[in-house]
């Protein structure tokens, strides 16, 4: 898509961000601007907005459009078993360790349409741990959570996901986890039975439980350093001693004060809280 870089100015981005905060209580002011501006410009073009004034009016006064706006300016791209080496480490080291506990609580923050939640559920099932686990999968965006709860993904993705699954150490027939239904793959109900999808905004909401594993992958990249720091503190407050924190391939805790409490597992972006 051709992005006309002149369509929306930096000032107009700020105007929209303060509208969102005042009108709806959604705070995007700690988000990195280049990505946000690209996505706003993309939406503006896609929806053939006539003028900035009209666009802004719709965001402020049309609730359905506001939802669309939030969904479109946040990035919801994800896949099952993305970065297979990471999921292999979960399967071979992290989850078996947590399996020694009577009960496993996992928080998947920024779960988007749920692909990672089902991936974790599959591993837990294969490790025979699913019955005593609970996965809290949260996102700020109610629309993606609704989709996640349907446990249906495009059938055309399954080849890729199956390859990822095998690379991550999976040995079952991946297609046994879903049934094909026209262009969709509907995942087995059992996988969803231990996932709770609910709305949580990392920017404004507080800690709601204590977990042994928190995953938040490719979310922090959209935040500025201050917000990253704030969110890492939230994770630290929500993580038990000896619990694990997992971030995306290009994310780190090193710049933050919480870092000194954590020890990284070699080669992966997984840290263990050492107290």
């Amino acid at each position, binding site marked *: 898509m051709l*992005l006309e870089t002149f369509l929306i100015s930096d000032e107009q981005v700020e105007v929209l961000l303060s509208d969102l905060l005042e009108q709806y209580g959604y705070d995007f002011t700690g988000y990195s601007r*280049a*990505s946000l501006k690209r996505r706003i410009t993309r939406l503006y073009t896609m929806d053939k907005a006539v003028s900035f004034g009209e666009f802004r009016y719709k965001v402020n006064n049309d609730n359905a459009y506001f939802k669309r706006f939030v969904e479109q300016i946040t990035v919801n*791209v994800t896949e099952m078993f993305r970065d297979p080496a990471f999921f292999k480490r979960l399967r071979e080291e992290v989850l078996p360790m947590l399996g020694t506990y009577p009960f496993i609580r996992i928080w998947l923050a920024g779960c988007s349409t749920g692909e990672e939640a089902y991936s974790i559920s599959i591993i837990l099932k294969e490790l025979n741990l699913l019955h005593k686990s609970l996965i809290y999968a949260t996102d700020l965006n109610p629309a993606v959570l609704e989709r996640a709860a349907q446990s249906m993904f495009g059938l055309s993705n399954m080849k890729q996901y199956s390859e990822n699954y095998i690379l991550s150490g999976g040995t079952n027939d991946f297609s046994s986890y879903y049934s094909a239904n026209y262009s969709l793959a509907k995942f087995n109900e059992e996988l969803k039975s231990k996932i709770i999808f609910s709305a949580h905004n990392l920017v404004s909401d507080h800690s709601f439980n204590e977990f042994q594993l928190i995953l938040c992958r490719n979310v922090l990249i959209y935040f500025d350093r201050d917000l990253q720091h704030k969110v890492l503190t939230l994770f630290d407050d929500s993580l038990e001693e000896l619990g694990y924190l997992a971030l*995306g391939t*290009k*994310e780190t805790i090193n710049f933050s004060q919480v870092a000194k409490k954590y020890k990284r597992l070699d080669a992966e972006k997984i840290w263990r809280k050492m107290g």
Partner: protein
Amino acid sequence: MERCEAFIIGGSAGSLEVLLKVLPVIDAAIKFPIVIVIHRKHGTDSLLPDLLSGRTGLQVKETDEKEELKAGFIYIAPSDYHLLIERDHTFSLDYSEKINYSRPSIDVTFQTAAEVYKDKLACLLLSGSNSDGVKGLKNVKEWGGMAVIQDPRTAQVAYMPAQAQLNVQIDRVLKPEDMGEFINLLSNRKPQNE
């Protein structure tokens, strides 16, 4: 161009050979950062920086998010993320949809850099088989920057620079053997030479 503050190179199929030829020529005292966005397969991450750093005295590194662009560094876009440049001359990463079937997309880096560096930006588009980078180069021109392409006749796959030539007002068309020296000249240029 009065003063170059950032130089960005985009390329796809057939561009690695060009980079291997160009990097050794670049002056170690170069006065701006060089950013390289080339399409590659996901999962071959660490190989490219290693390969390129063997060809230059400059520091080559895969870009981290929030990292500041500094003169004398060669930054490589990580595979499977878009690489964006912020107002404050830091990088940010983005895992949004592929653009032109590509992530990283050259368009994304060119476009975000164009707005930040305006007339102090030069972008070079190399060999490649799709048109990623062409729109970005157009944006670079709109914001007053300099658009440079590899001479399509010297490109292993001419499509990408040829498309740029068709659609964008190109400032310079260069053969691989002239690119390094061109970059050095941008660094040494005095305002009165304009």
